[in-house]
Structure formats: C-alpha cells, structure tokens
C-alpha cells in the first residue's frame, strides 16, 4: 500500500500524536481482548466439563476485580486521550500560514491569505505547505457539509455552511499526500479529493510567488486562439483565469492549472490526454459534476488545451 493517505504513517506532529495514541490504545485493547477471550474460553471449557466448584462469593470477588481492572484501564485510556487532545491544541501560533479552504460539490477552493487582497493566491484541489511551519486552515462550505481530511497530517474537521471551523497542522517532512472529503456530500462524494504538497520553505515561497502572478500571456497563435475560446466560450462563465477576461467564480480557478497534478478534484492525472477527455465530456469520468459539456469543435478543443498548458 502506498500510505499517502494513511493514519499510521504520520508526516506531521499532529498526526504523529494521534498515531501514538492509536498504538497505546491498540495495545491496551488488544490485551483486554486477549484476557476476556481467554477467560471466556477457559470458562466454556471448564463449564463443559462441569467440574468447577467456585462459590458464589468467590465469583463475586472475581467479577469485582475484573470490573475494577476495566475501570482502571478505561481511565488510563481517557487520560491518554485527554492528554493527546490538549497537545493537539498547542500548535496555535501567530505566525502560522493561513489558508482558507471552501468546500463545494465536489471540489475544494483554496485561498492563501494575505493582508493585501491582490496578493492573495487562489487555487483549487491542491494545497502547498511549507515544512516545519504551522498552518491554520479556515474552513467554510458553499453548499452542503464536507469534511477536510489529510490523514498523514491531521484528523478531519467538517466544513459546515454558515460556520467557520479551524484546522491546525504542521508537516514535518516533505512529501505529497492525499486528502479526501470525509463527510458524505452527495453524488460525487467519492471523487472529492485533494493533493497536499509539503515542501521546504524556499520551494514553497517560490511556488507561492509563481501563483501570485497573473496568467502568462499566450505565445503561439494556437494558444492565443485557445485563450479567445476560453474567454468568449462557456468556460469563462464559471472559471477564473487571473489577468484575462475569464472571471467566473463558481468553478476551480484555472490561473495556474498547469502546475497542478490532478484534474477533477483528484479524479485524474493532469495530462493533456486526460484533460482533453475531461473537457470533451466532463460527465464521463465524474458523472453529475457541475461542468456541462462545453460543446467545442475539435480545433477549438486543441486550442484550449494548448492554452491551458501554458498556465504555469
């Protein structure tokens, strides 16, 4: 198994704490199970032979002792859980990177906060974070309840319409991880994933700066033709490409779509072939998603693909 969406292979402090808690609980519970199963098996074997002569008083004492042990074990588990819960709260820090994630049926809108609005970075379905720096996610939903879950980094928290929820995490090693919506959110709940790239600070800053820039201008005539189709065709109704006339807000931002590794919220790899298939018939791979077939001619489709590939 690849373990890029795994609770037991933590890549950050929060997930590591929970993973530790899991193993503590696992071993205690495993011991309890063995003890009870063994007790039951011996009791059945003895009862089958019918030889036991324990008095009711002895039985009472044994049950009381067993009950006492379970209470102690349970209190230990409760204690461990509360300690972990408190430790998870200690990550809060004023110099955290703030990212706003908004859930939509069935994709993630991602915005990197900045005091200057024009320097905010908007992207979708892919989150880059610097290794070693705490990150605070502000979570909203535009429609139904979703849940942001990146198992290698932190437990999930719901995106509830009308509420603001927070999620704190910190990646401690670089890597590419996968997250997935964990609250049933309708038809394509299964295909609402996202990619999380944890990278060294320098790489992250470079990525952020790159994404802050508006979309690069097309160079070849085909790319220019693609841009025209996007701006005048149906694409611009929903998608935004900063620096162009495409200013829709109800679908993933495409300003730097070529830098992302997946399309369709983690449904497909972002290659020219898959992208062509997706644009030609968006309802094929992810039926029910909000993108209607744009009805492009072959030549238009090729032009749009050529243009989208420049959006780095």
């Amino acid at each position, binding site marked *: *198994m*690849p*373990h890029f*969406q795994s*609770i*037991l292979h933590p890549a950050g402090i929060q997930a590591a*704490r*929970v993973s530790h*808690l*899991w193993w503590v*609980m696992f071993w205690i*519970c495993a011991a309890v*199970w063995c003890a*009870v*199963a063994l007790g*039951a098996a011996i*009791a*059945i074997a003895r*009862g089958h032979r*019918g030889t*036991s*002569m*324990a008095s009711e008083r002895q*039985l009472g004492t*044994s*049950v009381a002792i*067993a*009950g006492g042990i379970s*209470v102690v074990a*349970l209190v230990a*588990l*409760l204690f*461990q*859980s509360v300690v*972990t*819960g408190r430790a998870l*709260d200690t990550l809060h820090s004023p110099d955290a990177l703030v990212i706003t994630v908004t859930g939509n*049926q069935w994709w993630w809108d991602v915005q990197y906060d900045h005091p200057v609005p024009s320097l905010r970075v908007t992207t979708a379905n892919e989150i880059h974070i610097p290794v070693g720096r705490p990150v605070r996610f502000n979570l909203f939903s535009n*429609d*139904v*309840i979703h*849940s942001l*879950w990146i*198992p290698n980094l932190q*437990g*999930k928290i719901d995106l*509830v*319409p*009308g*509420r603001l929820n*927070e999620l704190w995490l910190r990646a401690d090693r670089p890597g590419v991880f996968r997250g*997935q*919506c*964990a609250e*049933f959110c*309708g038809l*394509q*709940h*299964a295909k609402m994933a996202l990619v999380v790239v944890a990278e060294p600070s320098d790489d992250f800053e470079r990525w952020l700066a790159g994404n802050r820039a508006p979309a690069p201008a097309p160079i070849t005539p085909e790319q220019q033709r693609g841009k025209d189709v996007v701006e005048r065709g149906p694409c611009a109704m929903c998608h935004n490409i900063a620096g162009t006339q495409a200013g829709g807000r109800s679908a993933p931002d495409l300003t730097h779509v070529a830098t992302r590794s997946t399309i369709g919220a983690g449904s497909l790899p972002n290659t020219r072939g898959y992208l062509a298939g997706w644009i030609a018939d968006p309802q094929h791979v992810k*039926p029910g998603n909000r993108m209607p077939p744009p009805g492009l001619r072959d030549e238009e489709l090729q032009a749009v693909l050529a243009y989208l590939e420049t959006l780095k």
Partner: protein
Amino acid sequence: MTRHEGDEKRRRDDAGRPALSENDPRLEPARLDTERRLLDRTWANGRGLIAWISDTDHKAIGRRFLVTAFGFFTLGGILAGLMRIQLARPENTFLNPDLYNQIFTMHGTTMMFLFAVPVVLAMGVYLVPLMVGARAIAFPRMLNYGYWMFLFGGIFLYVMFFLNTGPDAGWFSYPPLAGPEFGYGKRSDVWAQLITFTEVSGLIVATCLVCTIFKLRTPGMSLNRMPLFVWAMLIVSFMVIFAMPSIVISSTCLILDRLVSTHIYNQAEGGDPILWQHLFWFFGHPEVYIIFLPALGMMSEVIATFSRRRVFGYIEMVLSMAATAFIGFGVWVHHMFTTGLPQFGQSFFTAASIMIVVPTSIQIFNWIATLWTARRLRLATPFLYMASFFFVFIIGGLTGVMLASVPLDRQVHDTYFVVAHFHYVLIGGSTFPLLGGLFFWFPKMTGRMMSERLGQASFWLLFVGFNLTFFPMHLLGLEGMPRRVYTYQAAMGWERLNLLATLGAAIIFVALVVYLINILVSLRHGAVAGDNPWGASTLEWATSSPPPPYNFSPQPTVASREPLWHTELTPPPIVGLDPSKREVLVTYLLDAEPDHRYPMPGPSLWPFLAAIATSGMFVWSIFQAQGVVWGSIPIFVTLVGWFWPTKGKKALQHGVHGRLALGDSLS
C-alpha cells in the same frame, strides 16, 4: 365495612387467586379439560383472510413481525452484497454513483429501521407475555395496527426505491444535503416519512410491552423474579419511548423544511444544520442500545439454560442494563466530534462514552462467571451463537472505546474503521445473539427442533464469513478509505482488502442460506420438540409448543426466579378466570399481586383499516401539504369504527375500572 366494599374484597380475593391447594376441586383433570375446550372456542381466531388480518394473538403478530423483519433483512443484505460487488475492484462500473448512493442509504435505513429494531421488538412481542405467564399482550389491537404500519412503511420505502425515488442522503440524512436546497425530488421525503411509519410502530410495540410487563405478570412474579430478557425488553421499551420523540421532531421538521419551506435547518435563514445532528443522534445513539439490550437479554436466557444454573449476579445484570440505557442518552455527541463543537463539551461526551463500557463489561464478566460454574455446559448451536459474542462483539466494544477519544475519532470518523466497528457491534452484539435466540425459541414457536448439523454449519460459515468481511475494514479505515464512496482509484492500494471483504460477504450469504434452509426443512421435518426441549427455566417453556392462543391453561404462578427448575416451590396455578371470555389477570406493578380480571378485545378488522388510512395520509402528505388535512378524515372514520362503544353484555365487560362481576367463572 360497607356491603359494597365487602363485595369488592371478595371479588379481589377470588379473582385470580391461586387455587387453595393442589387438591382444589377446580384443578381436577376433567374440569381442566372442559375449561381448555371452552378456552379453545373463546380464543379461537376464525379462518380466512379477514380473520388472519384481524388476529390479535401476540404470537401470530410476533411471528409476522419476525418474518417481515427477516424479509427486510434479506433485502438489506442483498443491497450490501451489491455494494460489496461494486467495491471488489477499483473504478468498478457495476453500479453508477446515483444507484450506489441510494443503495447504501437503503441498506442502512433498512437494517436499522426495518430490521434491527423491529426484530428485537418482535422477539419481545412473541416472548414477553409467555415469559410473564400472561394469556395475552396488552392492547392487542393496537399491536396489530403497529404491525401493519411497519409493513406498509417498509413496502412504501421499497416501492419508491424501485421507482428510482429511493433516499440517497444516507441513513442519517444530514441537511442541507437532504434539505430542500440540495435534496432533489422526493427522495429525502420518502426517507423522512418512512421514519414516521417506524416511529408509530415502535412506540406502539414499546407501549404494549411496558403495559404487559407492568400489569399482566402472573401472581408471584414480583419485579425481582422477572426473567432477564423481560427486564431487557422493559428497559428497551422505555428507551424507545424516550428516544423516539427526538426523531419525531427532527424528521417532521425536515419534512416541513422540504414541503412548506420552514427554514429550521437552513443556516441562510437563521436555521442550523447542526441542530439536525443533535436531534438525530440523541435518538440515533440510544437506538444502538435499543438493538443491543434485547440481545443481552437473550444471551442471559440461553447461557442460563445451557449452563443449567441461574445467571450469576441477577441484580447487577439488571442494574447494568438500566445504567447502559441511562448513559446511552448522554453520549450522542461522539457522532459529532468533527463538527467543530467546543472541546470542553466534547470531553464530557468522551467520558460518558468510555463510562458506558463499564456496565456492559460487568455483564460480560457475570456471564463468564456463570459459564465457569456451569453444570455440564452443552455446546449446541444456540450456545455457539452466544459464545461468539465474547470474541466478536468485544472487538467492536473495544474499537468503540477508541472512537470515544476525540483525537483518534477525528482521524477514523467516517472511514471504514467505523464501518468495521459498528458491524462488529451490531452483528456481533445483536445479530449473532438474535440468530442464536431464534434457534433457541424456534421449537417453542413451531413445535419442532431445528437441525443441529445445519445449525452448526451455518454458524461456523457465518463466523468465518463475518470476520473475513469486516476485519479487513479496520485496516482499510486506517489506510484512509472513507465511508460511502462508490469507488476508489487503483493507486490507493485498497483493492486486496476490499476483495477479501467481498469474498467474506459471499460466505455470509451462503451461511444465511443454510440457516434459511434449516428453518424451512425443520418446519416440516424437524424432530418434535415437546414443551421444554432445552430444559430451560422460564415460563414460556411451561406450555405446549407452539402454545395455544390463550398461552396457558391453567395459568401458572411462580414462587422463584426459575419456576421450571424449582417445581417443588411452585404454588398451584390460577383459577377463576372466565374461560368463556378472553380474560386476563391484571396484577400490581411491584409484587404482581392479583388486582382484577380484564377482558381482552378480540380480533377486529379496524386496526388494519386504520393502518391503511394512516399510511394513505402519510404518503399523500409528502406530496401535498393538504394531504395532512384531507387524509386525516379516513383515519378519523376508522378510529371511530375501532372505538365505537359496544352494547349489552359486551359493554358490561368494559365496566368501570374494568372490574368484572364474578359468579360466571368455572366454580
């Protein structure tokens, strides 16, 4: 003392008193024979379809409930099989996402509302009156109405499902997904209204059981002599009565939001989608214990019988069940740890969710103590099912402790880890004991034994298949597989474990087919059971198998907790109930001292007609608000017919306080 009071006292003394001695002339065999013939005639149900529909015998209704609930179990199981086929390999196209979402919603809804709860209540309907030595259940016509409501609700759900209008927002139907903004068509209305059907049915059965247990116990069966299964059903009935109002309110508000645009769950208009979750889980978590506690009661009965000794620690067992029920109402927020509620509040629910383990573990230890000192424990099929509880359920119980922890829950919540957890709890903790219990009481219900060989075969198949299906799901959850996904990518690496689970599901299917074959074959060819084939201690084994419509003649009394094991203590049976009327003996709540005789209503078609009228109104009202108004008229008409006062002699029977004039008894 006035003359009137003297009469009263004499009546009380005579009615339902045990015979004075074994030599009471009213206990002569010839007289009892005459009485039985009269009883046969009085309690007989006519032939034909109308008589069948009108039947008020709790055993007939209980059997119907069981058969219907197992019918829905089969449907829910088939849906589960379809899901397992879909998930057997990545990117499978066996089911499309829309159908998959309907199917998992239908599976959960069916198993919770149309199988698990009705089936345990049905066991209570069949067994409780027999166990407490009563001739009938309280409010038998209302019970009949409750059965038809359950059946019509289930049929309604499946008809809508086959019309492609099956609910698709999960068995928990969270708004806004299930609300008017995002829940298109009538799908979520169907779900919400099915809940209304099952609420009506569940509340009715609970009421019947509470009244039967409180007022119809045979003399001598004080509260502290009640069988543990009866205690379990009493506690569960109260849980139903306390938990159901919450879902009544929440599902009604959902329908109102959808039908007449109230904005109760709409945050944009000042409502709150989280409110739904509180209301739903305030019902939803006790629901788990409603399913679980009757199984514990069955465990106790079977373990006692096969160990040939009383269950160790009766009072602790009863208090444990009561404590579970009580704490069960204080843990609902552990379903909502990821919604972003304040931490301090959450820790209270963590503590409660961990604390609820204590009473269950006390019961487990008491059973182990019982088995430890058993007298030649028999390892027959019913016992095997109960014994598997120790190995299977406990896994579910322990993962439940893990889920009570907020940090850990936030990782595994809504993953296959949780799917594994609650199937271990519900199948291991309820379905296994239920199948064992069914095997155990089958001879009482049918007069024939089930085949031991087929029984063992189906048990071991089920045991292996169950673990093969659900154990890998723990690992899938830890490796990040969320619940309620119709497919996954090959790159996720979940394929092998999913395939294993699907293989296990196939084995479960075979096991259940063997179980069904066993039932069908044994119905005709099983060995004749006799009254008490297992040598059990409780009163249902004191009468013939299957019992006559009036359960007992003469009605037994008890002087110990295990009346059939201490026959030397057993006082003479009841005399003085009028065999020419459907009379039952009402007793006092605590000590079951005789109070008065009460005539039970006989068969009637009205409950069936009322159920049709009510169902019509329920279905109409999800399409048009005025259905509530106009649809109520037929209900009113059928209820008037149902409660129309009867004249003459019959009216006398319903006299003041239900007290009867004596003098027409056998003596």
